[in-house]
C-alpha cells in the first residue's frame, strides 16, 4: 500500500452534504417549473390482459390537455430495456403487469391530466396473471410474451448453467448431505426520491435533453434514442443528485424518461413525469424473488465437497438486466456463480431459471442476486455445523476460499487482489464475544446469535466493464473532473476528488467533480455493481497521471531537474528534498498554458477482460472481491413471534477505505436494508396486483427497528484498485438476513428457510414445532 497518503484514507466531509442539510441541494423534482406540462400515465387496469379497444376522444377534448398518446402515436421503436428492448413505452395490444402504461397524457396541470385519464375508455380481455414463476413455467401456462425471441421456451426467459467436477460422485461419496428449499421475497428499493424525468426539446439541435434522477446516463441514452427516433448524439441525458437508487434507478429511470420524452417530442414542450409513491411501488423494478433448492455434500470432518443448486427467479414482466445471449444475465448468472458462496468446493452444478410473470419486472437491487444465493449457502453451512456439532465459524474457516483456490466458476483467488475474509471473521468473532453464551431470561423471550459471511465481485462483468472521464486543470491550479457516474448518496463526488487531489498533489478543496451528464463527460459506465470507486477511480487516476507527467516534463527545464525528481504537493511544485525550490503550481500552469502544454486529459481504465462460458459457467468474470462477516443477536418473543434485532457487528474487507466514514455509511445502510429484507420487507402480490403499495403497509426499518450498527473496516489491498480499493457499495446488504435466520435457529431450535421472518411466520413455526 502507498505510504504517506495526505487525503485518501481520511473521512473528509462530503462535498455536497452541507447543501443537502440546508435544503439547498437541488434534486430533479426541484427543477420543476409552473410552465412545464405535467405527464400522467393510464396504467393497466388488469396486470395481464389483451387490450381490445382504447377510446381517447373525450380526453383529447378536455381543455388544458396538450397531448394524449397511445401505442400508435409513438415516434420510434415501442420498446426499450437495458439488454433487450422488450418493454413497451405504451402497451400495444397487451398488458403484462400493472405498471404498463396503456395511454399517456400531458396537460397544463396535474388535476387536468388526472381528469383526462378518467375520460379514457379501455376494453380489456383479462388473462390469467402469474405471481409465482413456478406456476408461470408450467407447460400449460399462458404465454406472457408470445412474440418474444425466447417464446419457444414458454415463459422461461433463460437458464444459466454451471458445471464443475464430478458432482454425482461427490454426493455418492459424501458423509453428509444437507438439502433444503429456500425462499426469498420480492422487495422494493424504497429510495426516498420518487422517480422523475423532465424532458426538454432542444430547439437549437432538434434533440432532446432528459433531466432524470438515475444511475446510468449513457445507458439511458443508448436505450432510449431508438424510442425517440433520434441519433444518439442528439439525446443528452443528465441527472442532478439522486435521492437514493440502490440499483432501481438504472431501470425505472428509463420508464419515466421514455414517457416524458415521447410527450415532449409530441408537444414540443417541456414535460415533467413524476411518479407518486404508490406508482413507484406498483410500476418500478424489484429484487428478484427466488426459490432455491440447495444440496450440499461434505465429509464428516467438515469439508464441503460439492453443491448442487437449482434456483428459480421471478423475472417479472420484462427482461431488464437479463439478456438473450446466455449467460449475460447479471442477476441470474450470479445466483449460479455464488451457489457455493465464499467456499472452496471442488464439484458444483448450478441451474438458474429466470421466468417471466406478471409482477413488476425484477432488476438490479443492491447485490445483483448475490444476497439470494448467499442466503441459501449461509443457511446450509450453519446446518452442516449443527449436524457435525462444530462451531459455525470454525467450520467456515475450514472451507473458505484462499490464495490459489478456484471458485466453482473457475476463478483463481489471488492474495494480491486482497483476501481479507478470515480477518473479518476473527474481528467479528472477538467483537461480539462469540465464545460467551448469551444470557437467557425465564420469560417467553428467547435470545439467539447468528453468523454469516459473504464475498462480492467488484463490477459488472458480461455487461460493460471499463470507465472513462475528463480532467481539466485550470490556471489557478484547480481541477475539474467530469465523470458520468451518479451521485446518489454514496459519495462518488467526494472519493473521486480525494483520489484526484492525492494523485495530482492538489488540495482536496481544489478539485471539483461534475457528474452524470452525457453532455459533459464520457461514459464512466453505470453507477451500479459497486464499481465506481475502482473503475472510475482508476480512470480518474489515469487522467491525473497524464496531467502530472505533462506538468513535470514541462517543469524539468525551469527547475533544471529530472522530472522524476520533481513533486507536487498542496499547490506547490518543488524538487524532492529541496523545499526551498518550491514554486506556485498556478504560476507553472500559467506558463504551461502559454507554452502549448495540453491541460485537459481523458482518463480510461479497463479491468482484465471478464469471461464466463455459456456451456458450463466457467471463466474469470471478476477481478477482485470484497468480503465480510456479520454477527447478529436477536430476541424472539415466543408467544407472539416478534423478533427484535439486539446487536449487529459487521466487518468488511474493502481493500482500502478511500473515505472511512463513507465506507461505514455503506456498511450501516446495507446492514439496515439486509435486516429489513430478513425480518419485514415483502412486496405482497395477488394476481399481479400489489397489496401493500404504501409506506404504511410496505414496511422498511425505522430507527426503532435497528440496534446500533457496529462496523469494522478491514483492508486487504487489491493490486488493481486505486490505492488498493475494492467495491463496497452493494455487498453490505448480503449477510444480515442469513445471520438473523441462523440466530433464530439458535434461539428457538427451529429452522426457518423462507424470509422475511415476520412475527406471523415465526409464530406459525413455533406452534408447528410445539415450542410455544
Amino acid at each position, binding site marked *: 500500500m502507498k505510504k504517506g497518503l495526505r487525503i485518501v484514507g481520511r473521512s473528509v466531509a462530503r462535498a455536497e452534504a452541507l447543501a443537502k442539510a440546508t435544503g439547498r441541494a437541488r434534486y430533479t423534482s426541484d427543477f420543476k417549473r409552473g410552465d412545464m406540462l405535467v405527464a400522467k400515465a393510464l396504467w393497466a387496469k388488469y396486470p395481464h390482459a389483451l387490450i381490445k379497444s382504447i377510446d381517447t376522444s373525450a380526453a383529447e377534448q378536455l381543455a388544458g390537455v396538450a397531448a394524449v398518446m397511445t401505442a400508435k402515436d409513438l415516434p420510434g421503436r415501442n420498446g426499450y430495456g437495458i439488454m433487450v428492448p422488450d418493454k413497451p413505452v405504451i402497451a400495444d395490444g397487451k398488458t403484462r403487469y400493472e405498471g404498463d402504461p396503456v395511454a399517456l397524457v400531458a396537460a397544463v396541470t396535474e388535476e387536468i391530466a388526472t381528469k383526462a385519464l378518467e375520460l379514457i375508455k379501455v376494453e380489456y380481455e383479462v388473462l390469467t396473471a402469474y405471481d409465482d414463476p413456478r406456476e408461470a413455467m408450467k407447460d400449460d401456462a399462458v404465454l406472457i410474451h408470445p412474440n418474444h425471441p425466447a417464446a419457444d421456451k414458454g415463459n422461461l426467459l433463460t437458464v444459466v448453467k454451471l458445471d464443475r467436477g464430478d458432482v454425482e460422485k461427490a454426493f455418492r461419496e459424501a458423509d453428509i448431505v444437507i438439502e433444503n428449499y429456500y425462499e426469498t421475497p420480492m422487495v422494493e428499493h424504497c429510495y426516498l426520491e420518487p422517480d422523475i424525468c423532465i424532458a426538454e426539446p432542444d430547439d437549437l439541435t432538434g434533440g432532446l435533453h432528459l433531466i432524470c434522477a438515475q444511475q446510468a446516463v449513457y445507458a439511458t441514452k443508448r436505450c432510449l434514442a431508438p424510442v425517440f427516433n433520434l441519433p444518439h448524439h442528439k439525446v443528452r441525458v443528465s441527472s442532478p443528485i*439522486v435521492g437514493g437508487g440502490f440499483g432501481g434507478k438504472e431501470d425505472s429511470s428509463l420508464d419515466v424518461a421514455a414517457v416524458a420524452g415521447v410527450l415532449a417530442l409530441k408537444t414540443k414542450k417541456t414535460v415533467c413525469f413524476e411518479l407518486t409513491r404508490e406508482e413507484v411501488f406498483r410500476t418500478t423494478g424489484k429484487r428478484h424473488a427466488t426459490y432455491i433448492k440447495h444440496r450440499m455434500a461434505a465429509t464428516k470432518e467438515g469439508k464441503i465437497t460439492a453443491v448442487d443448486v437449482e434456483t428459480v427467479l421471478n423475472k417479472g414482466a420484462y427482461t431488464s438486466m437479463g439478456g438473450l445471449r446466455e449467460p449475460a444475465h447479471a442477476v441470474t448468472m450470479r445466483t449460479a456463480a455464488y451457489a457455493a458462496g465464499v467456499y472452496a468446493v471442488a464439484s458444483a452444478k448450478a441451474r438458474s431459471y429466470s421466468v417471466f410473470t406478471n409482477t413488476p419486472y425484477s432488476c438490479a437491487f443492491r447485490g445483483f442476486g448475490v444476497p439470494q444465493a448467499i442466503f441459501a449457502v449461509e443457511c446450509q453451512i450453519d446446518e452442516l455445523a449443527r449436524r457435525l456439532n462444530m462451531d459455525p465459524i470454525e467450520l467456515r474457516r475450514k472451507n473458505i476460499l484462499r490464495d490459489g483456490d478456484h471458485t466453482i466458476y473457475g476463478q483463481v483467488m489471488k492474495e494480491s487482489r486482497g483476501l481479507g475474509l478470515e480477518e473479518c471473521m476473527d474481528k467479528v468473532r472477538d467483537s461480539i464475544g462469540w465464545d460467551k453464551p448469551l444470557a437467557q431470561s425465564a420469560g417467553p423471550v428467547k435470545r439467539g446469535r447468528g453468523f454469516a459471511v459473504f464475498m462480492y465481485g467488484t463490477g459488472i462483468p458480461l455487461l460493460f466493464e471499463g470507465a472513462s472521464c475528463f480532467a481539466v486543470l485550470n490556471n489557478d491550479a484547480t481541477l475539474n473532473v467530469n465523470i458520468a457516474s451518479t451521485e446518489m448518496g454514496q459519495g462518488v463526488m467526494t472519493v473521486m476528488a480525494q483520489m484526484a487531489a492525492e494523485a495530482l498533489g492538489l488540495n482536496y478543496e481544489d478539485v471539483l467533480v461534475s457528474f452524470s451528464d452525457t453532455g459533459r463527460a464520457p461514459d464512466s459506465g453505470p453507477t451500479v455493481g459497486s464499481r465506481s470507486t475502482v473503475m472510475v477511480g482508476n480512470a480518474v487516476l489515469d487522467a491525473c497521471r497524464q496531467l502530472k507527467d505533462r506538468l513535470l516534463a514541462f517543469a524539468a527545464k525551469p527547475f533544471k531537474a529530472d522530472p522524476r525528481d520533481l513533486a507536487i504537493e498542496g499547490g506547490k511544485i518543488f524538487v524532492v528534498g529541496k523545499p526551498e525550490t518550491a514554486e506556485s503550481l498556478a504560476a507553472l500552469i500559467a506558463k504551461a498554458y502559454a507554452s502549448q502544454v495540453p491541460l485537459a486529459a481523458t482518463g480510461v481504465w479497463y479491468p482484465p477482460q471478464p469471461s464466463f462460458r455459456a456451456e458450463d459457467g466457467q471463466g474469470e468474470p471478476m477481478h477482485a472481491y470484497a468480503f465480510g462477516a456479520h454477527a447478529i443477536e436477536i430476541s424472539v418473543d415466543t408467544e407472539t413471534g416478534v423478533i427484535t434485532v439486539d446487536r449487529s457487528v459487521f466487518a468488511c474487507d474493502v481493500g482500502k477505505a478511500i473515505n472511512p466514514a463513507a465506507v461505514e455509511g455503506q456498511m450501516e445502510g446495507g446492514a439496515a436494508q439486509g435486516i429489513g429484507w430478513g425480518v419485514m420487507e415483502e412486496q405482497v402480490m395477488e394476481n399481479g396486483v400489489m397489496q401493500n403499495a404504501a409506506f404504511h403497509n410496505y414496511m422498511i426499518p425505522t430507527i426503532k427497528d435497528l440496534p446500533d450498527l457496529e462496523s469494522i473496516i478491514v483492508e486487504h489491498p487489491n493490486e488493481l484498485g486505486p490505492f488498493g480499493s475494492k467495491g463496497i457499495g452493494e455487498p453490505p446488504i448480503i449477510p444480515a438476513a442469513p445471520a438473523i435466520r441462523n440466530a433464530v435457529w439458535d434461539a428457538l431450535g427451529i429452522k426457518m428457510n423462507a424470509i422475511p421472518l415476520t412475527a406471523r411466520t415465526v409464530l406459525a413455526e413455533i406452534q408447528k414445532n410445539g415450542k410455544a
Partner: protein
Amino acid sequence: MAVDIKFILNDKPVELQVEAQEILVDTLRERLGLTGTKKACGTGDCGACTVLVDGEAVRSCILLTASVDGKKVLTIEGLGTVENPHPIQQAFVDAGAVQCGYCTPGMVLTAKALLDKCPNPTTEQIKEALAGNLCRCTGYTKIIKAVKAAAKKN
C-alpha cells in the same frame, strides 16, 4: 374559494391566497420556491416533508395550508445556510449522517424540535423522536450520533 391567510414563514410574515385543499408541502415547494422540504410519499408515512409549526415537527404533506393561518412555520431554509449552518446541520455533515440527503431536511428539523425541548436526549429519546422519519441509506446509526453531537455543542 380562495382563502386569505397570514403566517410567519422562516421569521418573515407571509400573506397568501390559497385553495381550500391546498397542501402545505405543495405551497412551500411550488408557490414559495422552498424546495428544501421534500415530498417522498404524500401520505404522511415517511417524514421527508417535516416542517416545524409553532415549534412542533409536523408533516407538511398532510397539512392544509389554510390551517397554518396565524402560526409560525419553520422550513429547512429558515434554520441555517451553507455559509452559516445551524449546529444541527453542521453536526449531520460532520457525523457522516447525510447520504442521499432526501430524508435529511426532515431529520434535521425533527431533531431541532427535540433538542429545543430536551437539550440532552438519551438514545431512546432520540429514537422516539425520529421514529417517524424514514431513512433508507444510513441505517440511522450516524444520525443518532449527529443528534448527540449537536446536543453536546449546545
